[in-house]
């Protein structure tokens, strides 16, 4: 079975490709890349996708995604979450283990894989917990989790408060070759907080989460990675201080990697204040990349997320981190919630943003506004996450599984959560005009999103 992806512009940071080319997929694998203008290929394909006007890139790999199944199927299921992933151009998603029950046993990992095999639209890779029950007290059976198919370990949602436990987890993981994904937050500093501490927090009378809560926790994680040699991956980096610590750690060879989310790369705490107050105050220190919609009400709970939306200076540090490789990956931290979880007082609302279906368009704003080049973004969306987990994906190299996204970077659309495949309609971007849509998403050569391939070449 041969599929020809014709007429697109291929960008594959894994092999430095950035040119007009056609792509031949055969039996689920990348078979040939034919630069445009080269000699016409001799093969005949049974199916064709017309990628004119589109970028053809390795399918995105989300290191950080909450699929909520089992236990919170009212928020999301594997079926809806992976469909959302496919629509967003993701071909692999890592399912965070804070389900009910948590993914803290080999049986739970196997169950998740079975459910994913039955109902998943894209590839689902389980993340196991670091500690039993995510309670932070005793290590989970990391070796057995790993044997069952867990690709990494995380107590995400909560930090591992006890530094001794984190040290042991890292040390233990060195024999498994799997990273620890750290939700880095010093809870003594951030307890009961609502949003980033700063002028907007002060004027809104909300409880502040200071940048120092993340910076202090990241400092500990780096010190422990240095001590143990274990691979420490910092989740959802949101502060300039953490970026700087990670940069310096990498420079001296500490095994640390890091991710940032689309929302932390584009939005600031001005979004919590809503359109009227944000425009009235227009604080330059909180100027977001995507402007606050004028009609966004204040205290909109869709802007409540952990870690919180930060400031302009943090945004710029994250962009610089992406450019110089300090921030390896862009991960969504897709956190779907129900209407009931969110339509309440700001201080009671569940934190999180439904991000799979807006991630591509949101990060393309970085490209459109000239702050981060497209190949850098695509490297952070596919190749780097694959390398962090040691996966054979995230690349269009010949012979590799044909996980491909074909997206139109200019397609203009208005975010309409009601049209999401995800059950989580909780996005602050509702009603915002963005650019960039995945036209097709292919997992191992199969179209999982987009119109069916046309017959013939």
């Amino acid at each position: 079975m041969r599929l020809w992806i014709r007429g697109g512009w291929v960008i594959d940071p894994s092999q430095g490709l950035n040119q007009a080319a056609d792509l031949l997929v055969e039996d689920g694998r990348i078979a040939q890349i034919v630069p445009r203008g080269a000699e016409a290929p001799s093969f005949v394909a049974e199916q064709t996708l017309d990628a004119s006007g589109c970028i053809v890139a390795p399918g995105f790999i989300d290191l950080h995604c909450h699929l909520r199944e089992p236990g919170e199927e009212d928020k999301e299921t594997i079926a809806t979450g992976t469909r959302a992933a496919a629509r967003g151009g993701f071909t692999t998603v890592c399912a965070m283990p804070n389900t009910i029950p948590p993914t803290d046993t080999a049986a739970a990992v196997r169950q998740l894989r079975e459910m994913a095999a039955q109902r998943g639209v894209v590839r689902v890779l389980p993340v196991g917990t670091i500690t039993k029950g995510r309670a932070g007290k005793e290590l989970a059976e990391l070796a057995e989790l790993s044997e069952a198919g867990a690709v990494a370990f995380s107590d995400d949602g909560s930090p591992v408060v006890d530094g001794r436990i984190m040290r042991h987890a890292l040390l233990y993981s060195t024999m498994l070759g799997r990273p620890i994904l750290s939700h880095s937050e010093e809870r003594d500093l951030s307890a009961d907080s609502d949003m980033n501490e700063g002028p907007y927090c002060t004027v809104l009378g909300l409880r502040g989460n200071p940048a120092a809560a993340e910076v202090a926790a990241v400092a500990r994680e780096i010190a422990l990675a240095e001590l143990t040699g274990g691979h420490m991956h910092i989740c959802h980096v949101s502060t300039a201080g953490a970026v700087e610590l990670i940069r310096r750690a990498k420079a001296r060879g500490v095994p640390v990697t890091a991710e940032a989310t689309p929302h932390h790369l584009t939005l600031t705490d001005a979004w919590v204040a809503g359109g009227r107050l944000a425009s009235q105050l227009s604080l330059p220190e909180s100027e977001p990349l995507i402007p606050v919609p004028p009609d966004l009400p204040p205290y909109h709970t869709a802007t409540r997320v952990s870690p919180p939306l930060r400031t302009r200076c943090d945004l710029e540090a994250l962009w610089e981190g992406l450019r110089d490789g300090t921030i390896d990956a862009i991960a969504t931290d897709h956190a779907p919630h129900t209407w009931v979880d969110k339509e309440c007082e700001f201080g009671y609302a569940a934190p999180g943003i439904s991000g799979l279906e807006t991630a591509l368009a949101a990060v393309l704003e970085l490209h459109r506004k000239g702050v981060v080049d497209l190949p850098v973004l695509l490297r952070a969306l596919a190749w780097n996450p694959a390398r962090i987990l040691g996966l054979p994906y995230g690349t269009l190299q010949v012979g590799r599984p044909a996980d491909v996204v074909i997206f139109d970077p200019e397609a203009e659309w208005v975010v309409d959560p009601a049209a999401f495949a995800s059950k989580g309609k909780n996005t602050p971007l509702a009603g915002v005009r963005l650019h960039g849509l995945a036209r097709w998403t292919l997992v191992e050569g199969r179209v999982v999103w987009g119109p069916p391939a046309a017959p013939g070449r």
Partner: protein
Amino acid sequence: MTEAALQMGKRRHVLDLDDFVPEEFEEVFAQADAMAEVLARPIAQVPALRGVTVVNAFYEASTRTRISFEQAAKALSATVVNFTAQSSSVVKGESLVDTVRTLEALGADVVVLRHAMSGAPYLVARHFSGAVLNAGDGRHAHPTQGLLDIYTMRRHLGEIRGIRVVIVGDILHSRVARSNLWGLTKLGAQVVLCGPPTLVGPASYWEAVFPNVRVCYALEEAIAGADVVMALRLQKERQESGLLPTLREYIRLYCLTPERLALAAPHALVMHPGPMNEGVEISPEVATCAQSVIEEQVTNGVAIRMALLYMLAGRKAEA
């Protein structure tokens, strides 16, 4: 009709003073003058809001504000329904949105909301077709208190523009401070925030948002030449949560004493939103001295709340 009247005429809710224009304050104050005149009559009641249902929805314990609102609504002949709930019952699953829909179905025209969570009135306003009057939300805003404070200052000092107001105490947790900051800075007053850094927060945060605001940690310095000195209530739990070493040290540094008041302008007003901890943030002598307008604040509060209820709900009553 002035632009301000148009502004107030368009307004459905009063949730904060951050969206008030200067003319709007004058409009409310003129209306409050009329209401004060009603309150001074032998029979202090007018039929202005007959047939209008005002629900006092209090999700946080309050005696003074609730009574003030109740008195204001009754002086206008509104039907008053008092409703109290503990925030904890909300956490248990009784949603605010559901309650608002119920109040709407019961025919409420105005919801007066007191709530422990900042921003809650905005949620209520999104789900309620009538008017919402914020009676204090978390640390965020207490617009009727801000208005009555400024109204009281204006009655004694005439002009607000150019006056110097010192607010001393637990600024960080105070919705009263925030509403006064919005109102006073919009009307051109200078405001000095005074208290220990743990209860004021970083000066840069306040100065980024409000023009004409200065943070000063020494009360003697802050108070020098002030036209108004406003002391805020100090909650005892601030010491327990580690924001203060001891109550004793707080009193030593920040209690409004006659000696400290003597540093202010001779005509300086002493204010306090209540309830007072006499001997903590304010000494008993100062609380009852000739410069104190604390009791007048309470009286003016009813007039201001009558004015707002009338302006928000009066149209329905006239219809």
